[in-house]
Every structure is written in C-alpha cells, then in structure tokens.
C-alpha cells in the first residue's frame, strides 16, 4: 500500500465570478522512498491539490467536492481540524517557495526550530538544542552551533531554505511536500538544495511530493511525474518514460518549450558600436551606516549595433542596476555611457529626454509594469503622443500597428491590463517599449515571471522584433538556457563586476573565469 493515496480529488473555488474548478478528478499516490513530481504551469492546480490535503486552502471560497486521500488508514479529507493539525506537525511537512516569509524575523533560527520539540515532544531545552544542532548539520549549515543563535535576516536565501528544510524534518515526517522550493533561489544554490533533498530522502527513506514548473529540475530528481493542466492530470508516468516519450500534446508542448541549445538565428551585429560603457560605477548607501555599497563596480563593455548582448548573473550581482544606470534611471557615480558617441551619463532628467525615445526598457514583472487604470490604447498611445503624433486617426493607426506587431488582437484595444494573462501583458509592455521606435532596448528579465510555454512565445517575439525594427538589446537574465538561446554575446557579472565577456557559444564551450564555470556547471546538471 502506498504512503499517500489520493483518489478522485476535486477542489472548487466558489467566487463572486462563478465556480473555478481548480482541481478536478485528480488521483496520485506516493510510496515510501519515492519522489513524485507534480508539474504544471501557474494556475494548473498543482499547489491547490496538495494544500487541500492538509486543509491549507482558504475554505470558503475553496471547497473539496469529492475524493479521498488515504494516509496511514486515515482519510485526510474527512479528518477533523485537530487531527489534521497533528498530521501536519508530525507526519507530513511542507517546504515553501519563499523561505524569507516562512521564518519569523523576530526569532533566532534556533528558537524557531526548538519550539516544536519543546512544546510538542516535551524535550528539555538542552536536549532540543542538541537535536536541532544535529539537524542543522545534516542540512548542511556550516557552524551549526554558532548559527543556532543567528537571525533569519543574517542567513542568505539558500541558508534559509536549508533552515526551512531542517524545520520540516524536525518531527521526522514520513512525507515531505516541497512547493517550488528552489524557484526563488539562484542557480548555484538551487543545485545544492536539490542535492540536499535527494540525499535526505535516500537517507531517511521518506516520500517526497515535489511541486514544480521547472521540468529540468523535475527530471533530475523525480521517480514519478504527473503533468497537470487546468486542474486535470493529463499525463503520468516514470520520469524516464515521460521525458523520453511524452504522449499527451500538452506534455510535448511543455518539453518543446524548454530553451535548449544554441541560438538558431544569425547574429545581426554590425561593426559600429552603439552603446559604449566605460568604468561605470553605481553605489547605494546603507540607510543606517551611510556606508557606500558598490552595486556596479567599474563596468566596461561595448554593445554593437544590431547585437543582442546577454548580461548574466545571480540575484544581487548588480545586473539590473547596471541596466538602469545605462538608461539613467538610477544615478551612477562615475564612469561614462556613450550612446552613438554622445555622453549621456550624468545628464539631468530634462537633458536626457531627447534620448529617451531611442532607448527603452522592458521590465520583469508584467503585473506591475502596466498602469492598471489605463486601457491598452492609452498605454500604447502615450509614447506616441510624446513623439508628436497629434491627430487621433494617426494615433489609432499607429496603436493598431504596434498591436499587430506584438501579436495582440485589435479587439483588445479598449481593455484594461487586469483582463489579460501574464504573457499578454508582457506583449503590451513590449509594445510600449517599441512604440517610440527605439534603437536600443534594455530587457530586464523579460521572461522570468512567465510560464515556460509563454516564455518561448515571448522570446520568439523579441527576436522577431529585433529583426523587424533593427533593434539592439541588452538582455538581462539569470537563466542561462534562455540567454544562450537568444544572445549573440554574453557578459557574466558577479558582485558588481563584469568577470567575463565572450561570444555565447565560445563562452559555453570554454569558460575562463572560475565563477562562470560554477554557473555553467550548475545549470548543466539540471538539463
């Protein structure tokens, strides 16, 4: 018999706007010592399916319509609140996506970990502390004895996630549910955490349910995979079988969308340099100590006309700040930025204005990059008016042209951003950026917030626009596979400095800098 056996689970949300069938007739099971991955895009119901087992979805509006979930001869779906609480604390534990919001910032790590032992298991404080230090050691936190008294904010993202895993393991659960545990982490850290999960599972022989949208990650650790699409399971199988011979068209589409391999469009780079950055330094000042912190440290590079230049780095490496400094959205401290040979660094907002229409930016989060109170028409008309288009028919004409360009139906013209999906919103944002007919675009993680199938569409769109409008682009991303598929040349950045620069394929083949090597090997393992 399986450790957890979910049968015919349906969960609906009864909202103001009608019934949303979040999960419909879903069945899956996990054995001891087995890893089951639930894969799907956002909104596919993969998290709801697991959360509802533990009574963690808001009810109402959520409601479990049917199904059973047998765990050790008990049906979790019919269990009382008290029973569920006991199960949650002892037998099934969860690791969440964002380790920062799951730790209490006002308690030291050690105190938070001791709590369940002292209150639920009646350990003495000394004994509990000993046990916790052992656990911290097991999840790979260095100097567990001294880190016992550390505060959550003193931990890095990866260390916090380790602490969360230690917390989940403290009651020696039989089943661990990990909901996108590495999505918020950098690729090198991601690799370490995944290895940790795999090792712990083997050592303790527990069952793991791994919820993820990232197929590469899933492939590296799951035994069984179920693929969910809009609330239903469309395919299931062993990892081998599913990845090698996907049956359902949706699975095939998912797999095909994973960016892999080299760029298949020829470089359009010309000889002429469009943007030249020399010794650019941007500092932020610490609020309390007023100590400067160099987010970008004397960065120098040149971007040729027509080129797509990748800027790769982990979070906090200063890559976004560099992009914003070039556009003068953040004030730089020293160094120069030349656009077509003209110095633009240090220009005032007013002096900068004539250059603005030539250099645009595409942002990461399509949910915050559009004004929620403006229709698509208003959003796209704004830059056009700024360019001096006056008559209404001219503007309407131009707006439609942009909408055609970025693949939005003309009938959407009077709709508002909240009526669109993430991918469509990103199309609108891209449309706004190309509306001024710029020469140079800084794209800051333009596809990171999107699902993998949408990601591919947007990348294709960007490549198409680059060609059509003869654009040059600085493409900022943490995702190496994406960068490889799009960029002609790549800059690698860490801790504010540009470490390495080279043609994409050459760099992939023989990275010189040690950091680049780690970065590349971390992402290779996954694919």
């Amino acid at each position, binding site marked *: 018999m399986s450790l957890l056996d979910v049968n015919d689970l349906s969960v609906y949300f009864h909202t103001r*706007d009608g019934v949303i069938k979040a999960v419909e007739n879903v069945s899956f099971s996990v054995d001891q010592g087995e890893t089951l991955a639930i894969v799907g895009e956002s909104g596919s119901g993969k998290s709801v399916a697991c959360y509802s087992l533990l009574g963690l979805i808001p009810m109402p509006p959520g409601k479990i319509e049917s199904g059973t979930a047998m765990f050790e001869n008990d049906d979790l779906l019919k269990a009382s609140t008290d029973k569920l609480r006991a199960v949650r604390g002892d037998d099934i534990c969860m690791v969440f996506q964002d380790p920062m919001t799951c730790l209490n910032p006002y308690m030291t790590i050690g105190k938070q970990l001791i709590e369940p032992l002292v209150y639920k298991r009646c350990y003495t404080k000394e004994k509990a502390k000993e046990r916790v230090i052992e656990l911290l050691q097991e999840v790979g936190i260095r100097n567990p004895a001294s880190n016992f008294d550390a505060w959550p904010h003193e931990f890095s993202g990866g260390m916090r996630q380790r602490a969360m895993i230690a917390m989940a393991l403290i009651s020696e659960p039989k089943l661990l549910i990990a909901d996108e545990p590495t999505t918020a982490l950098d690729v090198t850290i991601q690799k370490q955490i995944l290895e940790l999960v795999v090792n712990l599972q083997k050592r303790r022989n527990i069952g793991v349910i791994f919820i993820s949208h990232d197929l590469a990650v899933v492939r590296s650790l799951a035994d069984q995979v179920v693929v969910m699409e809009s609330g239903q399971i469309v395919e299931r199988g062993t990892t081998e079988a599913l990845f090698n011979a996907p049956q359902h068209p949706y699975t095939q589409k998912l797999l095909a969308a994973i960016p892999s391999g080299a760029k298949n469009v020829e470089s359009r780079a010309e000889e002429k340099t469009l943007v030249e950055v020399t010794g650019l330094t941007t500092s932020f000042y610490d609020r309390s100590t007023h100590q400067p912190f160099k987010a970008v440290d004397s960065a120098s590079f040149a971007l040729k006309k027509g080129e797509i230049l990748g800027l790769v780095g982990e979070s906090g490496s200063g890559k976004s700040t560099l992009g*914003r400094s070039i*556009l003068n*959205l953040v004030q730089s401290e020293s160094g120069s930025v030349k656009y077509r040979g003209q110095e633009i660094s240090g220009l005032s*907002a007013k002096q*900068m*204005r*004539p250059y*603005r*229409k030539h*250099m*645009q*930016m595409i*942002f*990461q*989060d399509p*949910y*915050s*990059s*559009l*004004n*929620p*109170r*403006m*229709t*698509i*028409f208003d959003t796209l008309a*704004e*830059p056009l008016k*700024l360019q001096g288009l006056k008559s209404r*028919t001219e503007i*309407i*004409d131009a707006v*439609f042209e942009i909408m055609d360009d970025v693949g939005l139906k*003309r*009938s*959407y*013209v*009077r*709709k*508002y951003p*909240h*009526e669109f999906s993430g991918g469509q919103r990103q199309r609108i*944002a891209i449309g*706004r*950026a190309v509306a*001024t007919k710029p020469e140079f675009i800084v794209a800051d993680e333009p596809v990171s917030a999107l699902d993998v199938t949408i990601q591919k569409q947007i990348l294709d769109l960007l490549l198409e626009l680059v060609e059509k409008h003869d654009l040059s682009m600085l493409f900022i991303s943490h995702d190496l596979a994406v960068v490889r598929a799009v960029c002609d040349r790549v800059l690698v950045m860490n801790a504010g400095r540009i470490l390495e620069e080279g043609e994409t394929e050459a760099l992939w083949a023989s990275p010189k800098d040690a950091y680049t090597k780690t970065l590349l090997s971390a992402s290779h393992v996954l694919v």
Partner: protein
Amino acid sequence: MSQSLTLEKYEKGTSLWTDAWVRLKKNHLAITGLVFLIVLALLCLFAPLLTPYGYEEQNIALGASGPSLQHWLGTDTFGRDLLSRILYGGRVSLAVGLVATAVSLIIGVTYGAIAGYVGGRVDAVMMRFVDIVYALPFMIFVVLLMVVFGRNLILLFLAIGAVEWLTMARIVRGQVQTLRQQEFVEAAIAMGLSNWTIIRKHLIPNSLGPVIVYTTLTIPSVMLFEAFLSFLGLGIQPPQSSWGVLISYGVETMEEYPWLLIFPGLLLSITLFALNFLGDGLRDALDVRSSKD
C-alpha cells in the same frame, strides 16, 4: 479611412472603476446611503420651490408649536417652520461638507503626490510642515481665522478645508511612495514623460481609491465641525440656519420644545450614518486585494 479607425466598434473593457461600481451596487446599505444622500441633497437644493414657508418667515402669533399638518415638523419660538429651516440649513451644512472637503482634496492630493514623488529632502521638508500644522490646536486656528477675518461662509469653507487637507496629504504621499516603486512608473520615466504628467496620469489615478474612501469619511467630520462651530456661535449666524445652528438653538429650548432638537439632530445623525455606510461600501468595493487578482 477614418471610418475604419474608430475604437468604438471594439468591445469595451471593464476598468477598475466599473468593477468597483458593480461591487458597490451589491452593497445594499451603501446604496441606501447613497440614495438617501442624493434625495436629501435635491430636497435641500430645491428647498425654495418645495417649502411653502421661507426660512425667516416668522409667525409670532403662532409661536412654538409641535408637528402638525400645516407645519410637519413644528415651528420654533418665532413661529418659523422647522422643516423649511432644516432644508435651508441643509444647504449650508452640505455645502460646507462638500466645499471644504473639495478644498482639502485639492490641496492634500497635490501636496501629498508631489512630496511622495519627489522624495528626499523636499519630501522631508514638506512633511515636517504638515507635522507642524498638525500640532497646532486646529480649533484655535479656525477660531482665530474667524476672529481676524470676520465671520463669513467662504472663509468657513477655506478654514475647515485648510485644516482637513493634512491627513489627505499623508494618505496620498504614502500611496504615491508605494506606487513609485512600481515598474510602470519607471517605464513612464524611461519613456521621457515629464514629472507632472507622471504624477497626473500615473500616480494620482492609482492612489484615488483610499482617497475617495477617506473623502466620504471627511465630509461627515467636516459637517460635524461646522455644526460645532455654529453651536459655539462662530459659524453661521441667525437668521441664516444650518444644522449646527438649529441644534444649538434646540438645546436651549430642549425642555419646553423637544422637537426643535430632535428633528435636526436626527437628520444630522442619519446623514452621517449614510455617509459612513457609503464610505464603508466604497472601501470594500475599491479594495484591490478583494478584487479578482
């Protein structure tokens, strides 16, 4: 060519405002409040056409009389019809509420938006000024204004407005500060829009939700304030009436002619209730967190 290039043939989207209105319509209490306020405002506005008696028309012979068929809400000691006086008084009270709030809205929203958008030292100086004015006992401030410039209606509007804008400025500043972090504002800067356009088109429309809610809650407090000032003898002077004047007069004669206090007091209370219900309903309707996303 222009035929094909009109937008009207395309389906209109639901703006966040339409969305909020749909939600507000489902809130019966708020809609009742809204309808009540509209009816009341119309009655007050058209008072001269509706009432058979003028607000200062005396009938000394009649004197104070209780509610009757001729005088639905009775008369005061001078034989003046109370209903007429309440409706005429309502014009002043509602006007004070609306105009003073509008004054506070204009000053507060502009001031707060500029402070929040510019930030840094400008923000610090602007907000310290707000703190200083906050610290002044505003009663004394208004009384002083009244004493120095004499009592008149316009000044009353301005004086109350000049006090009420402070909270508004703080609310808007906070809103704008959060909005400023949003990428659409950065996109507007990158586009090369002028600061003023960014404030006007991107920041203010998005910070209006809490402002509208606070406005509906400011109106009653302003009306109360006017009533209070008139009660003290600093606001509207007889024979002109406002609800505050009527209540103040009613208190003096409370023991002999209770209806002179009960009716104006009741109407003021109901109006304040209605405004609060509406404000509450608006808050629920405009709350983005409870909306679809």
